[in-house]
């Protein structure tokens, strides 16, 4: 499956609706960062990655690690929409009745390649997968999405150094630069700018894009595939809460569920967007 253009954008908005619905149903979860990374994530699963929902453990599949694991609503929704498990299962997100735990669970959720949630660790796992591919002579690629707050974790920089050491050109990550984290602006909590220059200094191939422009996302992924001898970081400027007006650019929506009225508003806005894209 390779969605492009409006169909790809519509898929991302449908995943947004599934994600915000899951968080609303659970009355718990992280909508803000799920919305900001959704366009990149949808592009990976609906265009870029070599995956098969019917064969989620195929050893030759491309891998994905959601290093910013709290954005599980985004990952679970994209996986459900892509057919790894029924969309109805999203009602069990964070519920004692199901196995869709608050953070990605590779043991119980089909399609999840790595259990994450403790920030700073996912990139190391992705490095391990990419290193294993080289070691095993496999051609699969490994992708990951990191939060901009997350990169304050020291382990991220350990992994960045290691990926460059082993010239992991089969590794491509997105840094979701939405500029906000739990306590407020990333620039205030722990400034990370300039993120692109830091990655360049660590010997990575760096591409800066608008993380809500699908053409730019696709072009960056294509360029990353052509680069040899170094891993690629796609630094994407995004909007936290993207697609839901009252959540956009509000740190307060990092880890809060909408109430019924707010959910109705979000649903209406997302459905309007989907209708527009599919119309």
């Amino acid at each position, binding site marked *: 499956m390779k969605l492009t253009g409006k169909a790809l954008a519509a898929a991302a908005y449908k995943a947004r609706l599934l994600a915000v619905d899951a968080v609303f149903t659970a009355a718990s979860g992280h909508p803000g960062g799920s919305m900001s990374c959704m366009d990149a994530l949808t592009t990976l699963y609906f265009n870029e990655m070599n995956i098969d929902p019917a064969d989620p453990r195929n*050893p030759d599949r491309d*891998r994905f*690690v959601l290093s910013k694991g709290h954005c599980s609503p985004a990952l679970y929704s994209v996986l459900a929409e892509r057919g790894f498990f029924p969309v109805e299962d999203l009602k069990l997100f964070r519920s004692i009745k199901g196995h869709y735990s608050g953070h990605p*669970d*590779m*043991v119980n959720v089909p399609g999840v*390649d*790595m*259990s*994450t*949630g*403790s920030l*700073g*660790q996912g990139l*190391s*796992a*992705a*490095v*391990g*997968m*990419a*290193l*294993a*591919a080289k*070691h*095993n002579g*496999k051609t699969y690629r490994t992708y990951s999405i990191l939060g901009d707050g997350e990169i304050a974790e*020291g*382990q991220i920089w*350990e*992994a960045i*150094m*290691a990926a460059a*050491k*082993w010239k992991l050109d089969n590794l491509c990550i997105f840094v979701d630069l939405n500029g906000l984290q739990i306590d407020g602006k990333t620039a205030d909590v722990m400034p990370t700018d300039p993120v692109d220059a830091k990655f360049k200094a660590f010997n990575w191939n760096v591409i800066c894009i608008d993380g809500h422009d699908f053409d730019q996302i696709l072009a960056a992924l294509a360029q990353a595939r052509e680069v040899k001898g170094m891993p690629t970081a796609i630094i994407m400027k995004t909007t936290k809460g993207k697609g839901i007006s009252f959540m956009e650019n509000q740190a307060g929506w990092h880890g809060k569920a909408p109430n019924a009225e707010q959910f109705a508003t979000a649903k209406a806005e997302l459905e309007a967007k989907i209708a527009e894209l599919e119309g």
Partner: protein
Amino acid sequence: MADKIATRNAYGEALAELGEKYPQLVVLDADLSGATMSKFFAAKFPDRFFDCGIAEANMTVIAAGMSTCGLKPFTNTFAIFAAGRAYEQVRNSIAYPGLNVTVVGSHGGVSVGEDGATHQCIEDFSLMRTIPGMLVCCPCDGNEMRQAVEALINYNGPAYLRLERPNTEIVTDSIEGYKFELGKGVTMKDGSDVTIIANGIMVPVALKAADLLAGEGISARVIDMHTIKPLDEELVLKAAKETGCIVTSEEHSIIGGLGAAVCEFLSGTYPVPVVRHGVNDQFGRSGSANAVLEYFGLTPEVLAEKAKAAIALKK
């Protein structure tokens, strides 16, 4: 009691030797391969050795990622960093998803010696044992270590293996019918008045303590409990029933390790006096290995006194 060899050396040699038989085995280190003895494997299989630099947290999770792709990683660093610094990486990225990684902590206990308290890990059993599903193993000599390494390569799941620094006697080769099996303790010497349950380099110490006790007419059983988790409950229960009291002995804090595991089990099944011999809630200190072991009372003499104290507590 023949040749002396450090369990870390036996480990390093075993890894290098088994590398050919097990192509899925990969070895990671964090700039300590000369001390952890992963250097033997590195020299023989440079393409399967990954030096991650001084970045233990990253090494631990790289191993987790590799294991999801069918490789069997052994990570190597000092116990204090393997179980201490990277504790949460082991917990969340290896043990929680049940990944097939063996975390190796070398230089466990106070017998690290001169480097002092910062490098003497006396909490690793405790930290690793509390993680659900984690196997925890500390072999007592070079012979047992070799067999433990192969057993762990074949084991499918998260595991912690402790190595120790000093050269110590081989004690298992003289045991008739000795067979290494993860989760099964070894009765090194039978006895009826008290049972000493030990692991690591405290097993040879326990055998010497048993000799001292024999000189006083006391019959001490000695069990080598190389696997702390899962604990060989059957063997512990049998010892409690047959000897009526237990002494545990480990090169570890008396909090949370082998002694704690035995107490936890017996308190709910067959309570008998249990005296714990180990480091008494203190940090280590610098000195030669023998001087430090003596400073903390990790000697046959002190262990024999603990055994007598346990016997005195019997009703």
